[in-house]
């Protein structure tokens, strides 16, 4: 890398990082103002029927009697120390709850995004290269169904079909059969932990419980990847440099490699975005399958008028989204040098 391109890199990265920080600050500030607007926070924490003294005491403890700017600083300070408040119905610090629930959502999201990416790329490539084939037309048709169907309804129908009628998947009550004891806790991912502990029963049970939720997520999300890959590959195939590569006798595999690198930046960004969505917006799926993750936690909190967890998860979602977008962007410039020249 010569001196000039290093300077370009530095400029590009620093600009992106600064933007990221600005967005994060904005988001946390908005979250702060939202919390101050949700009815009266005191009443939410303590109930509105208490005596004046208790309300006043609560107010002092929550720092609500101090001026707004001071509250803001206390808020930011707490945030940086990982203090997100206390959940009203679990009586735990929110941060602890989040740490406990995160692996469940993460496992579901990770398994899904891997399958989505692989499936989307393969289908997109095949459909683009062999346009008139049966697979191409079928993939197009299936993807239009995948985007239109409501994931929660699909999940319910599949449960009905495969649990009630066919009895080949377990009941939708969580990540693992209740009679199986998994004590190992290395990563929080049941798939990995059970393998590491040599507990094959646990592994098989986890897989079974993952099948249906993962299928629904894959079915409803793959179409987006597929469509992008399809349209990008079609465009690249028409380009001059692919024609030239063929003219020089390069093998098909080499040409596929060429095509893949060309579509990689936008593909990577889309996958990153979808991954962020899967992590933070899977509430409906978690509800249907009683999956003990972040989404279910947020839902229960909301139903109990407990706003700390909800705000925290919203914050987390925004952070995750921006972080992943930033990562995808950074990798894109490594792959395609034109990406950074705006």
């Amino acid at each position: 890398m010569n001196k000039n391109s290093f300077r370009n890199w530095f400029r590009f990265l620093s600009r992106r990082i600064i933007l990221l920080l600005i967005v994060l600050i904005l988001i946390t500030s908005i979250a702060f103002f939202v919390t101050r607007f949700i009815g009266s926070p005191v009443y939410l924490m303590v109930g509105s029927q208490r005596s004046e003294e208790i309300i006043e005491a609560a107010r002092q403890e929550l720092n609500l009697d101090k001026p707004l700017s001071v509250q803001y600083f206390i808020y930011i300070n707490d945030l940086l120390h990982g203090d997100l408040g206390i959940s009203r119905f679990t009586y735990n610090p929110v941060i602890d709850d989040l740490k406990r629930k995160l692996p469940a959502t993460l496992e579901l999201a990770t398994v899904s995004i891997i399958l989505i990416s692989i499936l989307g790329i393969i289908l997109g490539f095949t459909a683009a290269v062999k346009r008139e084939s049966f697979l191409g037309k079928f993939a197009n048709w299936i993807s239009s169904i995948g985007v239109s169907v409501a994931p929660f309804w699909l999940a319910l129908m599949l449960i009905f079909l495969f649990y009630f009628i066919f009895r080949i998947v377990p009941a939708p009550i969580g990540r693992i059969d209740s009679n199986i004891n998994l004590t190992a806790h290395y990563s929080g991912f049941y798939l990995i932990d059970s393998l590491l502990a040599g507990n094959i029963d646990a592994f098989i049970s986890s897989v079974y419980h993952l099948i249906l939720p993962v299928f629904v997520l894959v079915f409803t999300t793959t179409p987006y990847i597929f469509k992008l890959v399809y349209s990008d590959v079609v465009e690249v195939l028409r380009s001059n440099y692919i024609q030239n590569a063929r003219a020089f006798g390069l093998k098909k595999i080499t040409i596929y490699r060429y095509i893949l690198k060309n579509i990689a930046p936008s593909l990577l960004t889309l996958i990153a975005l979808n991954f962020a969505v899967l992590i933070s917006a899977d509430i409906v799926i978690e509800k249907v399958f009683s999956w003990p993750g972040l989404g279910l936690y947020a839902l229960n909190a909301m139903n109990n008028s407990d706003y700390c967890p909800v705000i925290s998860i919203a914050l987390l979602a925004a952070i995750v989204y921006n972080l992943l977008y930033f990562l995808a962007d950074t990798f894109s410039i490594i792959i395609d040098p034109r990406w950074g020249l705006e």
Partner: protein
Amino acid sequence: MALLKIEDLKLDIENSNQNIHILHGINLVINERDRLGLVGESGSGKTMTMRTIVQLLPKKAKIMSGKVIYQNQNLLEKTEKEMENIRGREISIIFQDATSALNPVYPIGKQISDIYLRHKGRDKRKALEETVDILRRVSFPKPSESVKAFPHELSGGMSQRVIIAMALMCSPKLLIADEPTTGLDVTIQNQVIDLILDVIKETDVAFVLISHDIGIVTKACSKIAVMYAGHIVEIGTTRIILEKALHPYTKGLVRCYKTILGKRMAYIRGSTPELTKTISGCPFESRCDVAMDICKRQKPKSIQFEKEHWVACHKWSN
């Protein structure tokens, strides 16, 4: 020694309701060390003829009949895999727009090396050496540093050099250049042609230059084949074509060229015939000043008028 022979090649393009006749029985011989120019208007079939050799035709193109004999084998009968081995290694073809012909996400060194690795072995270090060497041969400035450059950092002329380097990397026996200078500045045009001629000077490569610009062709080629509406109407050395052309179309072309030099505009009246209609007579008949009766009814066969001079015209077939 004949390197490649095209025998009676007929090519159609299948449209929804009718066939478009592109080539009507092309006969062409390319020898080792030839500098052959293929001239004609747009749509005369020059590109299609050369593309048929390497079988890089559009999906709807159909070869109706004919052979392309290379090294005692008919290329038209080869499978796609076999052709992949020939392209870039034995026969190289380069096209018009150089900058868009390079993959924007790979440095040029890698793109050139990929061709070496494809055809000549897996040694990456050797590939890099050969890449730097070929870049030097095409007068690319600072070859060992430039291998890391990306296509969008290059100018049009530089990109064209890279394409030429890629084409000559594996020392092919036949190099076909399809309008390599169209769209470039005039000064760059001459540079590119001089470069190609320079690089192939010491080798055995046969070179075919396709162009509608007869000026470039006369400068670069020793032999010229003139095409009209899918037929080859005349073949001769450059001198013969310029001074002793026989076919009325060739004469018209040369006249246009010479008047450009003399700054007066000449033209050939009429326009090219529609390609969907099957023409029973000579395709140039409607625009020909010396057309005879037989020209309407019968297609003229190509006859050898003198040494290194063939023409397909009824006027001269006796």
